């Protein structure tokens, strides 16, 4: 089963990390990514730019283009992993390694997956 692990945290908190702290978190993630990749369990991994760079298109009679994220929330959607795990239990265990002390990870089974052939 493919699972998406969606990362939510307060952008204000993550944004106030020092570069050293940010680098350390990324290095830790990278190490876990490598382990999962070696086991053939890692799909695409994405870290998003801050929500200030976001543009939202709302459907309607004419699509409306708005600045900013889709919703104002206390914790923002920061990025995601795609994991190939044999059970939810395994996905939870794998995702735990990506916790960095604050925020939350949402595990959602993937209904449809299109790896695409574009950017590597």
């Amino acid at each position, binding site marked *: 089963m493919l699972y998406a692990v969606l990362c939510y945290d*307060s*952008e204000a908190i993550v944004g106030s990390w020092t570069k050293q702290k940010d680098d350390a978190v990324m290095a830790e993630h990278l190490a876990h990514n490598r382990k999962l990749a070696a086991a053939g369990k890692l799909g695409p991994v994405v870290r998003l730019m801050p929500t200030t760079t976001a543009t939202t298109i709302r459907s309607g009679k004419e699509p409306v283009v*708005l600045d900013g994220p889709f919703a*104002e929330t*206390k914790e923002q959607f920061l990025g995601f992993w795609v994991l190939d795990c044999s059970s939810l239990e395994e996905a939870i265990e794998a995702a735990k390694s990506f916790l960095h002390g*604050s925020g939350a990870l949402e595990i959602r089974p993937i209904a449809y997956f299109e790896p695409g052939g574009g950017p590597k």
Partner: protein
Amino acid sequence: MTDLAWIDAAVRAARPRAIAALLRYFRDLDTAEEAFQEACLRALRSWPRNGPPRDPAAWLVLVGRNFGVDEIRRHKKQDPLPDEEHVSDLEDAEASLAERLDASQYRDDILRLLFVCCHPELPAVQQIALALRVVSGLSVKEIARAFLVSEAAMDQRITRAKRRIGEAEIPFEAPGAVERAERLGAVAAMIYLLFNEGYSATGGDAHVRVGLCEEAIRLARLLLGLFPSESEVMGLLALLLLQHARAPARLDATGAIVLLDDQDRGRWDRAMIAEGLALVEKALRHKTPGAYQIQAAIAAEHAAAATARDTSWGKIDQLYVVLETLQPSPVVTLNRAVAVCKIQGPEPALAMIEPLEARLSTYFHFFGLKGGLLLQLGRHDEARIAFDRAIALAHTAPEAAHIRQHIDRLLETCAEVARDDASA
């Protein structure tokens, strides 16, 4: 992350929102800061035991507000309590408070807090110092180090700035559209000044200077988060990111300035550039150009060029023409002359800057560029005079050293010419 590190990060992130809300309650900066300090102390005791609250800012506001109200009551024999309407909302329901704080009120609260710091009556340095102290929460010692003054002197400056603000009576009503736009403009200008303070001066502790730039970027992010469709705020953040991305390549190992053309572009911060480019693109879609957006677009042209030779000087020249109409200034024309020199050569560029001399007679960069152009034209004696003026006007040792390199090179060339003449 350990409890303490998490609390530190959460408190730091919540600070602008919390202080801004407390300022609205108490209408006094010192009281708001004191209440926030107390709330932070209580967070240190309570959060490790009870777990972090869902909304740290709302928690700090609630606890700080209750502490502040108690303090006011305790002193009420000396000072009468402020009107109930001034200390709004006395009930203690955290849920409903959190809900209220989520509303757009936060936006005007934080804008007011930032605006208070850049009150037009305060000199620029005091505006920056106050914002660093109150909004960013830097210690007086840290700020003093950044400005190369003693802690006592900085403490005095900040106290004086606060007193002037107290006397100025900033209105606490939600601002109208025109007033909000004015406040935004003033706050953006203060953030830009703060960034330049960190960017331009290479004297003092380099680490502290970088900290000022990072703080300016943080404040610009905060402002854009509050006003996500303001294209000039997007432009400001983009500009700061694109300029700061080059910081690792701006000084060499000996601390000497490396010019844009000679910088090792591999050392530029690619993530910062990518974010800056994304913001410029978003801002320009609005088709409401402003000075920050155009400057960001110029920085974007430099950032997008793989090598110095790939720079689109034609586009940069066009952007400077737009900037000259939006914000006419001799410094803008001076910068445009660099683009003109790259496209048409030193002669038209020199013709362009010569009329600016009277207005830029104390500007280091004017004489640096003038000397450079004269040097390219082979007018060595005049170049030497311009370089000497530049050195006299340099603010920092690396600036002076950079010009001295030119002079050394100039002297070498002259020596060679003399040798050639002698052997001819």
